[in-house]
């Protein structure tokens, strides 16, 4: 039976779970927003190296006080720091690093993920919305593994894990794991496995999510 906790996960608990799952020594890109929070739970022993697509490996924590340097920012344009062993490179080299499959894990937010691992996170498709994509499509398909962090349900209670995306696609078949406040999903072998549930039973979860779920026994 899958792992279970009585309570839904908080955002910090989700980030903690993701951080614990990142293999030691991995090269990782954390997307803007919730995924950035994962860095707060990585341990020094893990030896994880963070990539920021604007041209750096070995990114350190957010800069504070005198550390702030407008030439040293992350992809969210927030001033950050550099760690010993860092390196700088230009944009073509940085995205080549990503697209070439050299990063181990990329963690992203999402509007929707399909059972096949299709990701939607760049555009609501709403009438009149100004589209903006940034590195979303590169991040989605570039890393060896793409993990998503999202709330499982919309404010209206609809599942964001779906059979077929209704939002515009960011990348096809790219997501292998989804961390939500009520469950962690693993997408492999054309199935959606539920690794753990939080504050909900597997049966209740299966009733609320419109894709076939398989419990990890």
């Amino acid at each position, binding site marked *: 039976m899958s792992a279970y906790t009585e309570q839904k996960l908080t955002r910090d608990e989700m980030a903690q779970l993701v951080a614990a799952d990142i293999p030691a020594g991995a090269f990782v890109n954390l997307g803007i927003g919730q995924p950035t929070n994962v860095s707060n739970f990585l341990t020094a022993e893990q030896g994880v190296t963070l990539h920021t697509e*604007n041209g750096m490996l070995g990114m350190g924590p957010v800069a504070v006080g005198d550390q702030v340097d407008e030439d040293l*920012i992350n992809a969210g344009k927030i001033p950050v720091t550099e760690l010993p062993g860092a390196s*700088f490179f*230009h*944009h073509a080299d940085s*995205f080549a690093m990503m697209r070439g499959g050299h990063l181990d894990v990329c963690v992203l937010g999402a509007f929707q993920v399909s059972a096949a691992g299709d990701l939607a996170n760049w*555009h609501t498709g709403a009438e009149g919305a*100004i589209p903006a*994509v*940034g590195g979303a499509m590169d991040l989605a398909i570039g890393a060896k593994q793409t993990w998503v962090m999202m709330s499982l349900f919309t404010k209206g209670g609809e599942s964001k894990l779906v059979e077929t995306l209704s939002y515009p696609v960011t990348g096809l078949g790219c997501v292998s794991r989804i961390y939500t406040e009520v469950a962690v999903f693993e997408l492999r072998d054309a199935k959606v496995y539920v690794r753990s549930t939080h504050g909900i039973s597997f049966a209740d979860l299966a009733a609320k999510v419109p894709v076939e779920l398989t419990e990890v026994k």
Partner: protein
Amino acid sequence: MAPRIAASAAQAVANITDGSTVLIGGFGNAGQPMELIDALLEGGASDLTVVNNNAGQADAGLALLIKERRVAKIICSFPRQSDSWHFDEAYRAGEIELELVPQGNLAERIRAAGAGIGGFFTPTGYGTLLAEGKETRIIDGRGYVLESPIHADFALIKALRADAHGNLVYRKTARNFGPIMATAAKQAIVQVDDIVPVGSIDPENVITPGIYVNTLVALGGAQ
């Protein structure tokens, strides 16, 4: 040809004419050639096609070029930001054309122009709205989109330092688009903090070789 040393940002951008395609470096404020953009605004060239990662922020630089309707078309990856109000207004009024490109494809298309590549198959964007109308191909079981180079008339770039041959070094994440944009433009115009004598930059550490640099202007580090 050793680069021309311009006496001011205004002089550096003086030959940018109406209808030019201009690559503008920078990601956020890092590497943004603010003084060159201001000079371009002052200079009056219009009907420009601008290539930048974004579409201007707040009331400065590229945002003002857009506000003044001097940009006919923008090629970028991320136009919509909390403070991109001038772009938003121009776009909603139908007064600026937008070509939206995934960030890595934008970088690779600029690099391709500088490298004499006629087109390339990239997996980024395959199966998405941004691949609509583009040639696609399955290669070894994976979907790819054919993307074309982005050539330009000018590049406006900020580097940290140049030698008198135009060899450039950058600073931290301000490097971003500078090195590839320098290769893709007929004329690269570069603002630097200072210009040092030839021989002052270790040949191992040159990021942009002087062959790519046409105009330099030194603006001092305190700007």
